[in-house]
């Protein structure tokens, strides 16, 4: 995960989102949508990357398929 400016911007936006939610009063709690977006995205990426350690294979997993580096010829 990157730190620095992206982190700062996210933190600032989160404060704004909480304030907006307080005004609108629709969400179950202030910052609900923002938290789902932020945490959901992180969870999806982390879990998928972890699963990828078991699921990812070299591109010749199915050796009879056209080799992966033939990428010039998909037209036609």
């Amino acid at each position, binding site marked *: *995960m*990157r730190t620095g400016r*992206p*982190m700062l*911007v*996210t933190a600032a*936006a*989160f404060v704004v*989102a909480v304030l*907006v*939610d307080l005004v*609108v*009063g*629709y*969400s179950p709690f202030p*910052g*609900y*949508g*923002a*938290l*789902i*977006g*932020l945490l*959901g*995205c*992180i*969870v*999806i*990426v982390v*879990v*998928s*990357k972890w*699963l*990828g*350690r*078991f*699921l*990812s*294979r*070299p*591109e*010749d*997993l*199915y*050796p*009879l*398929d*056209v*080799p*992966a580096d033939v*990428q*010039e*010829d*998909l*037209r*036609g």
Partner: protein
Amino acid sequence: MGELLWHPVLPFLVGAVIVFFAPRRLGNLVMVAVPLIALVQISQLEAGTSVELSYLGFDLEVFRVDRLSLAFAWVFAVAAAIAGIYGLRTMESRERTAALVYAGAAMGVVLAGDLMTLFFFWEIKAVASTFVILTRRGGNSARAGTRYLFVHLVGGKLLLAGVLWHYAATGSLSFTAMSLTPATSMILIAFLLSAAVPPLHAWLADAYPEASVAGTVFLSAYTTKAAVYALARGFPGTQLLIYLGIIMALYGVVYAVLENDTRRLLGYHIVSQVGYMVAGVGIGTEVAINGATAHAFAHILYKGLLLMGAGAVIYATGRSKMSELGGIANRMRGALALYMIGAVSISSVPLFSGFVSKELVVEAAYQSELGWLVLLLKIASVGTFLHTGLKLPYGTWFGDEGWGPRRNEGARLQVDPLPVSMFVAMGIGAVLNTVIGVYPALLYDLLPFPVDYVPYTLGKVVEKSALLLFTALAFWLLLDQLGAKAKVSLDTDWLYRTLPRLIADAWRRSRGAPAPVAAPGAAAEPQPQPPTGEPVPVGEPVPAAEPVPVGVAGAVIGSSALTSSGAEPAPGAPTATVGQGAGVIVEPGARQRLLDAINRFIDPAVDGPPPVVSTWALGGVILVTAIVILTVSLIP
């Protein structure tokens, strides 16, 4: 009976015959005219229309129109128009025939009032869609198409068995809501297979990206959505579907993280989005069925647009892997902009179609007090935006190269201009997605039940906007984690692509057969070799270098693999297939050829070029048999 003339399947079938024989320009006209005629027919249909007739002693309702089938019929016709226009430049006559039959059969499925008619169109749909894949005649389309056909034939036979059993048990062929019995469970499994519910989903991600660019747009519209219709008609309120739906929604998202191929990534997102519809059917309330229908409608429109965008990149550059793309945004501005409209639609950004359809499913879950389902559906929608809205466009058009032009290649990546017809089709898709998003009443009026849901309230818009904004921020934070890797993911298709070979190897070893040796001629084929150039991270399981088994006939087969399976070599002529490299030249006799063919059949690892001809032959035999049986059955 006169009402049958208004059946929208008719223009599709007539058009399919015309485009097969007609010159290209007339074919272009037919591809546009057929869906328009169907649209006119559908606009004239009224809910409640029904045509019943007796056939072979069965009481059939071959044509039934109600609000549910009408909603699907509308969007099927619109999708045929868009995909047809998109393929005006690229599709050849045979592919057009297959596509029109496919679209017409899907139309027949949703307008079938009994299970026998449903099965009839269901099978035509399966075979026609196979030909849509096969007619690309390149890449892996022959192999993937054959696998697709076999999977769907199994599903079709399950459906037939279930229908006959159901008929024997109840004496009724009527296609209405059914309770779960052993017989209807078989029907349900057939529907689930066609809806791409894991673990029966692998055919989708396997085959869809192997069709031509326009063929994939056709494919994305019909098979899964016809299955959603069938589920909504036959099994509304089946609780199992709620769980299967949410598993689908998340499963597709997880695999999309790992995927490198653009169209395969979008294929996994079809699985994810169909999960919303299946969950909606499982909830089964009026709001939920409305939501499933609305989402199917919107999904066909925006997924078509997304696949047209990905297809435009393939048309322009010839590449589909994000790891080999990037840095071309400056030369594909139009396609990128149109793609992004599809991306914001699928991500349910307010003012676009996904927002008014997907949120209807979420609302149904909320009203049924399924709090966990609401939360998981929202998380799945985060994943949707992450991949189709952020990762895919970033990896395809920008990547490390940024806006472009590409710097790291000796030769600039060639980006061909797109034909106008592609822009027109994508433009129509973009306009429809926006119009539905802005005027949701247009969509809601087509739904099976009255809608009193108001999508645009301040609270809903603010919450959705916050969710999407923070997904984008999280993407920014995690950007270094999300680069596309040149990898493929293990999925359940491994079970029928590799496992049989492993079993065959083990069986051969147990009989003391000589260790498999790569045949000289087979060396041109990509063989699995220990990854040498590519560093493998520690802790990642590395598959053992699999020995390449050579069939019983050993080297003879390896060399005969060089001869095209379709075009037998002329006697005495040197046989070397272009692109396969030179090899040992053998002139097999008739007996040897037969042996080779058998070996090739029983041992999937030993074969030559993609068996296009054999697959066409198989499809032809099936078709001719069907026609003969139909003709015989019509004789009184």
